[in-house]
């Protein structure tokens, strides 16, 4: 019975495929795999926007949206209708084709990343044996569309915002991938399905998640920081800093194209969160062996919601970084730590299991972490600025 609930979508798909003639089956199979993802994640986007606004409101001791529908939960519908009925303004001097393609491309790229995410047991659109590589390659297309948006708008603010976004995304792409490498080293595979299967076992009731290793927890934290920067979310949301460049690269977008950028950004955030779950949090596997009766896809979405909640919490807490702080943080802390993390993963692999391994690995992490943070802090020393001529 639990097996059936776990595989209910797989069974349903095969049942539906039985009615399709053999010639059309590959196409029908692809459609049946893709369409649920195309429905589920935009729906999650809608729910997330309202949850985020309510959560941020509560963090700031406000109510948040509570007018549209029960407790404000129809707000995304109202927002959708609003953005659909708004006038779509394209600047006269904009490159119309690229201006149109940019929001489309960002959504398409974000959706393509879901192709390799195992949402449940046997529930992955495409089991590529280089799945992780595919994921990050597709993730880079988002940068392209951001630059298309910034460049084609022919606006200084757009271009500055796009420049910031590109600089930030490229800087953080490096630690994002390097934080992933440790998992690939340990799992010995680039396939997301294999990575999850390696983590799906249990010792007693405890799962074999990569999070519960020194390199795993460091890798997870580094991955999440880099993912936050990668999805342009607070505190790394300076590509859209309202006070400086208004809305960044999508300033010249209005109506539904603007909504598409939002959708693309959130889908990218879900995809990277899904990747973090796949790599470190055991994908669809239950957190304790006693909970394995709960369907695997529920666990995936539960973990995803927890990570989204974390993103919202971080957004409600931290102020926006400055550009130099952002870059220093990426190149002077995150990158060395992720390189070091690879060393730790190697040490962990070659040492005998036990307490000693834990202590050694933790020491290798803690010392440079403290040293690096002290180094970052030293730079923050404030000085009274002296002026030569303007006294």
């Amino acid at each position: 019975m639990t097996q059936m609930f776990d595989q209910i979508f797989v069974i349903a798909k095969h049942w539906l495929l039985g009615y399709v003639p053999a010639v059309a089956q590959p196409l029908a199979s692809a459609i049946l795999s893709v369409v649920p993802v195309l429905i589920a994640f935009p729906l999650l986007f809608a729910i997330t926007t309202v949850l985020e606004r309510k959560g941020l409101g509560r963090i700031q001791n406000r109510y948040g949206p509570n007018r549209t529908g029960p407790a404000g939960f129809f707000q995304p519908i109202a927002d959708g209708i609003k953005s659909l009925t708004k006038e779509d303004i394209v600047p006269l001097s904009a490159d119309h084709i690229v201006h149109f393609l940019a929001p489309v491309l960002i959504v398409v790229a974000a959706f393509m990343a879901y192709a390799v995410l195992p949402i449940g047991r046997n529930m992955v659109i495409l089991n590529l044996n280089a799945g992780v590589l595919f994921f990050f390659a597709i993730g880079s297309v988002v940068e392209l569309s951001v630059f298309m948006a910034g460049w084609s708008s022919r606006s200084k603010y757009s271009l500055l915002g796009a420049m910031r976004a590109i600089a930030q995304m490229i800087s953080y792409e490096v630690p994002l991938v390097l934080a992933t490498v440790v998992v690939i080293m340990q799992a010995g595979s680039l396939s997301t399905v294999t990575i999850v299967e390696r983590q799906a076992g249990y010792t007693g009731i405890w799962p074999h998640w990569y999070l519960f290793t020194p390199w795993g927890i460091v890798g997870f934290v580094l991955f999440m920081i880099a993912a936050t920067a990668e999805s342009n979310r607070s505190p790394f949301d300076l590509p859209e800093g309202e006070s400086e460049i208004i809305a960044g690269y999508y300033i010249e977008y209005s109506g539904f194209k603007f909504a598409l950028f939002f959708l693309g950004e959130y889908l990218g955030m879900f995809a990277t969160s899904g990747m973090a779950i796949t790599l470190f949090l055991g994908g669809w596997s239950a957190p304790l062996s006693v909970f394995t009766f709960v369907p695997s896809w529920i666990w995936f979405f539960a973990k995803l919601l927890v990570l989204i909640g974390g993103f919202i919490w971080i957004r409600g807490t931290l102020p926006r970084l400055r550009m130099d702080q952002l870059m220093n943080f990426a190149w002077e802390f995150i990158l060395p730590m992720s390189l070091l993390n690879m060393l730790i993963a190697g040490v962990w692999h070659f040492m005998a299991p036990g307490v000693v391994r834990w202590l050694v690995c933790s020491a290798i992490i803690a010392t440079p972490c403290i040293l690096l943070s002290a180094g970052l802090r030293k730079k923050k020393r404030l000085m009274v600025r002296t002026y030569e001529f303007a006294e």
Partner: protein
Amino acid sequence: MIGNGILKGLTETARNFFGSYVGKDRLTTVQYPEERVPQIEAARNFPFLVFDGSDPNAGLRCVACQICEKECPPKCIFITKSADKKPDAVGKQQFYPAVFDIDISVCMSCQICVEVCPFDAIKMDVEYDLPTDDRFAGLLFKKDRLAKSNEYYHEIHPTEASAVDAALAAERAATAAKAKAAAEAAQAKAAAAAAAPAPEPQPVGGEKR
């Protein structure tokens, strides 16, 4: 260690988040159409006309002197004087406004009309919930909409209204006394005229003294 401040901030926001569900006093937002902030006594929005008694037409304090119309900086008041007269708040025969319009879309709530009114006839209202789908006629308030009772005035500005009432009562008493004195004088004059068979032209002031 790096991240201490971040953890501190995260606990603070978490406390806010959960606290807002537990303690209502954290949420300072007033849910406007359902809840309203109680007005302070000095609140003011747009002017209204005070009337005494129960009939807005009979009791209107305004005597159509048109001072407010002339003083109004944005010129949002329009008054037409009546042809006939009626007794005003203190009992004198006065004109009354046949038409009294205030365009609240023009009014800037400066209260100058209230300052200049010698009859305490125009006062500031506190009502701010005045939305309308007709932005011309719906925002041009006529006399019948502007006229509000003295009781209402007491309700919204109790201290001020009591002071005005006291002043008006004193004035009313003075007017009554003056009228009585005038009536007595007239009576005395009539009596004197009746007593003296040969009427001699006498200076009026002298007789009074």
